[in-house]
């Protein structure tokens, strides 16, 4: 029996996940990274994206927005601004958000406005991650 990792996902609205898991994959600063049990102490910032964790053969996904994570003593803590499960995601709304962000991006590109562009990009990222999480949730 492999050792387990205690995963906690905490947002300002309280803890979303608190359970023992085998492996966690998260969108880090330098790209996706995986964490297994007995990982060295580690601290990284988190980008908007999809967080996946697995217990046995059961896999679950969460949409997370920016924050950071800390690993120490087989405890993995994610401090993020928001986290959503696939079941909580409104696909239609995310789709609309995506279209809106696409339009904004195009506009920003045309006007070369940097501020609007970063905002639109963040919105786009959020919408895409939401859709991805919702998509993965569907088959089960």
């Amino acid at each position, binding site marked *: 029996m492999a050792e387990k990792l205690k995963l906690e996902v*905490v*947002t*300002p*609205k*309280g*803890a979303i996940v608190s359970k023992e898991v085998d492996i966690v994959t998260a969108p*880090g*600063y*330098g790209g996706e990274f995986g964490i297994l049990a007995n990982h*060295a*102490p*580690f*601290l*990284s*910032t988190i980008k908007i994206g999809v967080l996946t964790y697995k217990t046995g053969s059961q896999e679950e996904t969460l949409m997370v927005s*920016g*924050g*950071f994570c*800390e690993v*120490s*003593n087989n405890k993995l*803590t994610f*401090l993020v*601004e928001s986290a959503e499960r696939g079941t909580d995601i409104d696909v239609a709304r995310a789709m609309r958000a995506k279209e809106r962000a696409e339009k904004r991006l195009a506009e920003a590109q045309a006007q070369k406005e940097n501020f609007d562009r970063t905002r639109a990009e963040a919105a786009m990222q959020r919408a895409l991650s939401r859709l991805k999480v919702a998509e993965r949730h569907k088959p089960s």
Partner: protein
Amino acid sequence: MPSLKDVKTKIGGVKKTAQITKAMNMVAAAKLRGAQQKMEDFRSYAEKFNAAMGNLSSAMDSGAFPLMEKREVKNVEILVVTSDRGLCGSFNANILKMTEKLMASLEAQGKKVSLVCVGKKSANYFRKTGKVRQRHVDLMGTFQMFNARAIAQDIAGNFLSGGSDEVRIVYGKFKSVAVQRPAEQMFLPIQPNVVEAAEATSSSAGSYIYEPSTEEIMEVLLPLYMNVMVYHAMLEVSASEHAARMTAMDNATSACKDIIHSLTLIYNKARQAGITAELMDIVGGAEALK
């Protein structure tokens, strides 16, 4: 002696007032539960955040970040957090009084003070002083993390551009349902020792691997830390506001009951006096007919 009818109307009026204060008490109680829950939910986040900040700050030199930079203090900004609505006893008044005191002592030292007001009560109170730089009103009812972020960003912007050399927060601290106290806290520059105090409790962790570098993580964390501080103050104020209103309305309801009681006594006395006078009339009339 007030007439019977006057007293009766008065009693009716006071009864209506009691009804309203009673209802407000119950509403405040319900809202307090929500606000307390929100605070409770946020606590774990804040605790973990402080622990992580502590771990980080021990690993680096604080002078490197503009948000932690100590300058000669000439301009002080005070972030005053009050509620939007009144009728909650002396809660807002206490915060405002504390702010005034702080302002007076800072000004006595020859520093310039500017204010950022959150909540209608502080915004209106300080409007005439002309020192209000920014006001955020009508959000204490339903605020979210992003409201706090907007406020924090605005303050950080002013601090970084040299508009203020020091920022303090004055808000109402929620001690218990019965006790709320105004509190003052240093906000900017962010002090490493505040963070280190938290670190002492969680120093078990060894050396971390940081990704990206500690400096870059700090760049992300410091603004986040400000959000956390502002959000925390707002949560405390909203819980305190409802708790204070609950107590105030409870007092008002019992005061109403006392008034009703004494008015009823007056009413009964007046009624009896009326009856006695009438009887005297009848007896006097009968006597005269003999």
